């Protein structure tokens, strides 16, 4: 993995955003990068490739990651709010000490992940495939699990408060 500066990451993200808008095409993948203490907000990054990367101490706010690829990506000490992960690939991801507030993870593939000391609150897990995960010391509060598959997870000190709508 390569560390990127805030400027480099922003350039890639901006390029990708322009690509989403159909304006240009550049080297904009975020695969296998290390991004530390970076804030990303109010931007469309649909289907972005960010596999095998590490986001640490990041704040992500109102970002559209629809269908994005986070396979084997690690989120560490991150706060994610008002963001969309619908249909995203969250397979084999790792979440450590993260907080997800008011996020849409509907129909995402959230499998074989490792989740430690995380909080998911007011999140949409409808249609999610949430299986084979290893979860410890985490809280899932006010989670919509309608039509979701939440099975075969290994849980230790995990609290769930779910509803279906």
């Amino acid at each position, binding site marked *: 993995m390569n560390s990127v500066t805030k400027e480099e990451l922003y350039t890639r993200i901006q390029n990708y955003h322009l690509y989403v808008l159909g304006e240009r095409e550049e080297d904009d993948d975020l695969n296998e990068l290390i991004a530390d203490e970076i804030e990303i907000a109010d931007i469309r990054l649909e*289907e972005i490739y960010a596999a095998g990367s590490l986001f640490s101490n990041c704040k992500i706010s109102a970002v559209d990651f629809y269908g994005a690829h986070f396979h084997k990506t690690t989120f560490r000490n991150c706060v994610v709010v008002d963001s969309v992960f619908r249909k995203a690939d969250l*397979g084999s991801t790792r979440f450590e000490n993260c907080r997800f507030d008011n996020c849409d993870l509907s*129909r995402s593939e959230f*499998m074989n992940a490792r989740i430690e000391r995380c909080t998911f609150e007011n999140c949409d897990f409808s249609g999610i495939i949430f299986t*084979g995960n290893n979860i410890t010391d985490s809280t899932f509060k006010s989670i919509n699990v309608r039509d979701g598959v939440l099975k075969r997870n290994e849980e230790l000190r995990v609290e769930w408060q779910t509803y279906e709508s």
Partner: protein
Amino acid sequence: MRWYKLVLLTWIIALPAIVKAGGGPINNEEVIREGVIALNKMIHQNEYNNRHHQSWKNNYVLMLDGNGKFIEQRDVVGNTALLLSDDDVKSINDALVKVNDKKTFGVYEIVYNNWYIDLSERIPENATIKYITDYQKWSKDNIRNTIVSEMKSINAEIFEKSELNGYEKKVGIVCGRVVVLLNGMKQHASVVFDAHGDESWTNGELRDLNAKIDPYLPKLSDVKNFLIEYPNALKVAFNTKGSKLDLPVMPYEYKPAKGSFFDAAWERIGELGTAGGTGGENKDPIAESGSVVYDYAHVLTADEIRNLISGLVEISNRQGGFSARVFISSYKTSNEDITKIREIVNNPGPMDVILWFHVDLDKTTHSALYLGKSVPQAREVSVFIRMAAEFIESLGLAASNFTLTGLFDGLSAFINKAQVPERFYNPESVDKDGNPDYNPILYQIFLKSGQLQSDRFGLMADMFPQEHMQAGGFAMSQIEFAFYCGAYNGLVEMVASMPKLAGWLIKIILNEDNAREELWEGMKAFANKCNLGKTDYMLGAISPAYPMMKIGECITPIIVDKVKEAYTGKNPCVYAATTGKVVFNIVMLIIPLTRAGDIAKIADVLSYIDPIALLLRGMGLGARLVFIGGKALYSWGKFYLQLMIQDGKIILQVLDDALRTIGRDQMPMLELAMAGTPIRVRVPPGTDLSGEWRAIRYMQDANGQNIISREGERLVEMSRGTDRESILGITDDAGKADGVADDVKPGEGVADDAATPATGDDFATVNGRVKKPGDRTDLYGSFNKADNSNIPKRYLADESRFNKLAEDPAQGGKITPKTRQEAMAGLEAEMQGVIKGEIKRGPADIEFFDGNGTPWDVKGPRSKGGRMNADMDQDQAFESIRAELQDKHDIMNPITNQLNKRHVILDCSYMHAADHAELWRRLKAGLSQSEIDRIVEVNVKF
């Protein structure tokens, strides 16, 4: 002199500078000079003709033959056919003679065949216009802008410098093809078109007219018809523009023939109130309409309206449910009523086929067509009505079927997917009460739309002995048309519910894509196949009267003999239709033996037909083809096997001599072994079970895949002891009770069987499984974010539908590359008949509902490659499918209102063979057979 640009249309792109193949850039001045000289010469000749009362000799189309230096009329490079044949040019000119019949409106057309441009760098196959224009790797100029300006300047200058006289309004058109070459070989071709009006046109006037007529025009790729229809539509729109009434563009125009019904009816326009139907101050056309016939011209009597309504409603009920609605207005109709009509026609019901007739003072009748969104083949229906416009002028309304009702009847049959009733092809047809019911509409359209083929090929003459054809005195064209109808009926009967086939008859009737010649050429190609080197294949026992014939002999005699059998002394049209049916059956059954690729286009159906047809392959000793009751059957002891395909699946039936289906329990069963694995096989009743029977092999189709019926039964070739004669058996209990561990559908283990070469469309789906995965990891996620510009055209025939399928309803209709991939997979599954069309966008929880209301989710795992440098996560790919099929809630079927299990379209486009095989290994291990049966595979075609 002022010139105003009228319209410019291009498809694809090209032309940074005009370049002759292999030569250097040339000066446009030469092209212009050549065009001016040629146009002036033609105009002067026309003027001479007019002075000598020979205006019928006039020409208004100029083909620039070229001088070998600048514009090449003849095919030079890349085997590019001529843009227009001599017949095409004649047809275009005939149409222009009509357009230019008065001194008010004149159109000239200059057509060139090819301009060439040489490239030094290959254009990627998936290049978008944007990519080409932005990156300009092969040109300093912006290619697109350059070709636009080139076309404009050339057209403008030719017409400015020509001596155009005689017409108040003049329009000049230049149209031609750009061939893009790479290293001297054709890379791709495009057609460009430009039209200019003279100074009499006000600024924006032509542009506005063009915008109005554009929806009614054929595609520019249909060059001939575009050049025919464009000038006519422009003239009609121009003429209508002067009306004080607020009329829409009405693209069809004619004058009723003297003595026709409409001629008489229009006479009544001046006699308001006397017609009786909707005449009189107190008669409201809407109230009297029955929601079918709206007579705002007050020309129909009450009886006429009633009869018309009942006739149209009856046809609607028996022909596919399309709803005819007719509006009639005249120059006397108030603008207020015109507004009412416009309001209705602009908001048609889903199945509405609306015709609006508007009559001028001189009885010139304008008409327009409006179609509901569920009416299929909208473009072809428009062409149909355009062709019908010329004989609508002769329509009656009384006992004859050549009426408005008959027109709708023909149109409904035209777009319906059902068989064509005899009343359309047999002039002596009678209804169940013995009354004549012949409807000539389809035949008339057929006649107008292209030359006959039957006189060009000897096969027709072989099939139809002269004495039979001459019986009844029918025209050869009538017999040929009946033949097509019969062929289509045979096709529909054999392969029902196949959406791909819906357009075949339409193509034949309209002769689109030269469908007639293609059919005949294809038939001729294999009819003449001799010495196939397959002498062990027998096509015998067609009837007891004919001995077995080796297929190594020519096929023609087989067809001829069968056709002769079909002759029952009926009139030649019925005979021809029966023949068409028989021949088509034979054709379809023989094609795979001959591998006659020539016929592939007609037989887009081949991928469906193959499993049936290929029963012949390798089983010549065991089964004999017979025709009984017009059906192609395989003799099976004293019984018959019948194979049909419905919704992409094989249905295997056993019939007795009265063609009644018999149950499997009536068939004796043998316990055998196939490659060491025990299997149970049903054999024909009456089979001598003594002796040592052995299973030889499973029957396979053309692609080497086992033939498996919808119920999972397989066909097995088996024989006894040293007998050379083998018979067919049917595996019992779908092959599942036999304990065959690897009892999977074709395709599931394709990677394990790499030695079996795929043939034909290597990526097609057979029995729900792809022959091999697409392996296009480079394309995964590559589709544009913002638009459909790099989506293959086959999925954009109806782009608004594509967009609807690609929308994610949970995200306000968001469309992304991923949702585009899903839409392509869904449409491909529909196009191949893998799932029943028309698919519709589902709710947030799934991707699609198919035509039965079955819910489908798309899974598109991708292998390593492209933008992802990681191996495919097999655990995740399997779990995603497993959870979908095993764990997720059932979905409400919107048609049956019952809960249905979810199904999966597995999009294999982005998988390597090894990943595909491994995924199937896991699926087979982790899912039940019924869950596996809810998976269909497909490869998107790029």
